[in-house]
């Protein structure tokens, strides 16, 4: 490796070493614990100080290429960005282009000697307090590309000896791989998070006269998405609530839930009667070649005829989904009679909605099979246990009911794997008179 030495002052420091040789291994191990680019940079900056350097900055080419992100300095968490043009033709520019290293000595009286390797005035100001100082910049090169540079300063004539430089090179080569992995993870993460955000259950809107609650627990414990889904949206003067289950788990199932939700919203623009809506959706998915089954509950919620009573009229249609449980404020629990074919199985499926009237304090609890089929020590969670729990929770706020169902099911599982679990409850608001 070519060693370019740019000595702008006198009295260059003697060869010294202060760092443990195993430091490179320690830093590599610490960096292996993180796939987040910023955290990986922090691990590196924290690792090199104070043994290898008194002060350090990591410069990374920004994803768009035009900028240079500068991490660290006196405050390891600090972040600055400068234009890549700023470093063109400087020693740092050479490091970033070639991946080689540059060593520079800056004497006490010299003002601008630092600018060759430190491209920001605030950072130069920090480093200037360490003069007479030695500045070492090493290219961070991994998998054939130079990602940036590790810029380190030793002050008060401590200097970088040959052993220090060899150690710094070892640290940089290991750190480069970790940083590059984190960079790849981050880039991939940007793509997935955009898709992911469109598939997570939506926040619940305020529905006049109604109180809503929901809980969602995907089978894949590291994910926020799965094959269960729900949606609540306004269609004209009505509100529609859907809860469904795509056969399968994980990302592939989640992608189809996104399509189902979007299809429903589009169809609702033309048709708001739940039975007819499910019929339209079934026809769409019948023509589809994805060969996945979707069960779905669709509810239309409207205010009752007399405003004083404050009750809600809910029409319920089901496409092969477990019927919602009607929980009266007094503790009575019954399943709403609603049945119909799973979506897409037959081309011209007919669905008939059942009408339910909710008085203040009553609620309809919708759930997916991850609830009843949760397998614990004593077998499946089951419908009976759910109905018994809901009876005890009668009159509680829908959010409380959903939280309690989730907790009871997860405690029943006692750590066992489970299918996606979704619970939505729509209650009739109590009048606040």
């Amino acid at each position: 490796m070519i060693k370019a030495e740019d000595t702008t002052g006198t009295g260059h420091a003697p060869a010294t070493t202060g760092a443990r040789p195993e430091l490179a291994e320690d830093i590599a191990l610490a960096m292996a614990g993180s796939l987040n680019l910023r955290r990986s940079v922090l691990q590196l900056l924290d690792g090199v100080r104070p043994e290898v350097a008194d002060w350090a900055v990591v410069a990374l080419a920004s994803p768009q290429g035009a900028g240079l992100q500068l991490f660290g300095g006196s405050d390891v968490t600090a972040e600055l960005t400068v234009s890549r043009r700023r470093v063109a033709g400087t020693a740092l520019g050479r490091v970033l282009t070639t991946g080689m290293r540059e060593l520079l000595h800056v004497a006490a009286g010299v003002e601008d000697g630092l600018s060759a390797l430190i491209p920001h005035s605030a950072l130069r100001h920090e480093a200037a307090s360490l003069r007479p100082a030695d500045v070492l910049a090493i290219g961070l090169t991994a998998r054939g590309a130079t990602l940036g540079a590790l810029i380190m300063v030793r002050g008060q004539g401590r200097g970088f000896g040959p052993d220090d430089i060899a150690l710094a090179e070892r640290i940089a080569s290991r750190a480069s791989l970790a940083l590059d992995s984190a960079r790849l993870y981050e880039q991939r993460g940007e793509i997935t998070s955009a898709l992911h955000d469109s598939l997570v259950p939506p926040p619940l809107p305020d529905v006049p006269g109604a109180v809503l609650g929901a809980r969602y627990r995907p089978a894949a414990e590291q994910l926020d998405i799965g094959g269960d889904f729900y949606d609540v949206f306004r269609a004209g003067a009505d509100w529609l609530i859907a809860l469904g289950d795509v056969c399968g788990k994980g990302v592939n199932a989640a992608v189809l839930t996104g399509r189902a939700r979007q299809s429903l919203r589009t169809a609702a623009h033309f048709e708001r009667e739940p039975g007819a809506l499910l019929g339209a959706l079934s026809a769409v998915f019948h023509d589809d070649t994805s060969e996945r089954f979707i069960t779905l509950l669709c509810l239309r919620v409207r205010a009752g005829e007399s405003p004083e009573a404050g009750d809600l009229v809910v029409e319920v249609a089901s496409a092969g989904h477990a019927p919602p449980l009607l929980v009266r404020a007094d503790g009575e629990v019954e399943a709403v009679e609603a049945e119909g074919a799973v979506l897409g199985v037959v081309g011209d499926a007919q669905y008939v909605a059942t009408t339910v009237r909710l008085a203040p304090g009553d609620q309809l609890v919708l759930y997916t099979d991850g609830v009843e089929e949760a397998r614990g020590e004593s077998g499946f969670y089951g419908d009976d246990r759910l109905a018994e729990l809901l009876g005890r929770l009668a009159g509680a706020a829908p959010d409380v009911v959903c939280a309690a169902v989730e907790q009871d099911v997860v405690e029943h599982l006692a750590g066992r794997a489970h299918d996606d679990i979704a619970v939505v409850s729509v209650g009739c608001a109590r009048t606040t008179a």
Partner: protein
Amino acid sequence: MSAADLGATLTAFQDAVAKVDVTNALGVVDAALADGADPIALLTQVVGPAQRVVGDKWQRGEWSVADEHAATAVAMSATETIARAVRRTPVVRGRVVVACAEREWHALAAMMIDCALRSDGWETTLLGASTPALRLSQYLQDLGPDAVAVSCSVLGSLPTTRRFIEASRAAGIPVLVGGPAFGTDDLRATSLGATAWAADAAHAIEVIRTMPAVVPRAEPLPEAAAAEQAALELAHAALIADLTSRWPGPECDLDPDLVKDSIEQLLHAVWAALLTTDPRPISQTAGWVTALLEFRRLPPALATSLRDELTRALRDYPLASFLFATSWT
């Protein structure tokens, strides 16, 4: 807003919680916020204390679990109202992920910490109740936060909180912990490898600013104690089944939920003592169970027989046996 005004706010809020009157409770909070009350003071001196009364009422048998749930929902709505006001604060600090480990279903405390940190200028991400460690890790890699804050109110969640600490520290991220399961000093927090411990929301704001940017990975827990806790956790369902079949005995008509809860809390206290080397959870839980029985006017001999049954059930676990025998005398 003066301390006297906050006192009046607390009285009005407690009254609304006792009646499970969400509208009134939110009205009280809204009025206080409009009067310029400090959001943190509202959380720590109004919503928090009112919530402790809820737990006490349940322990004394005055409230059912459903009442407790309903009252907690009121407190959560109040916290959400305060959080909405707080979200207008500009972000001037880094990012914190606030979470509850598995088996921790009391999301309210985490909401309050989230709200308090947000009001101090942190950008916060709140993960819900009982979050798996894998999911926390995913968030840590995706967000790269400056700190993790873990709220733990139940002793049974300390082992999974330890997993959170391991996950965070493996990524170099400092961890702040707090909540009733950690008690009133930092001993349990330090034993589990947390970077810092906070007594309440106001303390959390203070302490989180002083945490280092990067921390090393967590040291392993003492091997023998950790192995025994893991064995107890694996045998948990069997231990509960065995103990509930023998205590309180056929002639005593005690609510099965209360029986299970008492036994479970004591076993969780043993887990906590093993993992943290702090024996106080056992004596404190024994005191809690004894009081619970007293409130229900049950004979004191029931507490003694519960102690004896646990002593028998723990006989194959030497460290647990020793801790239990020396803590519940």
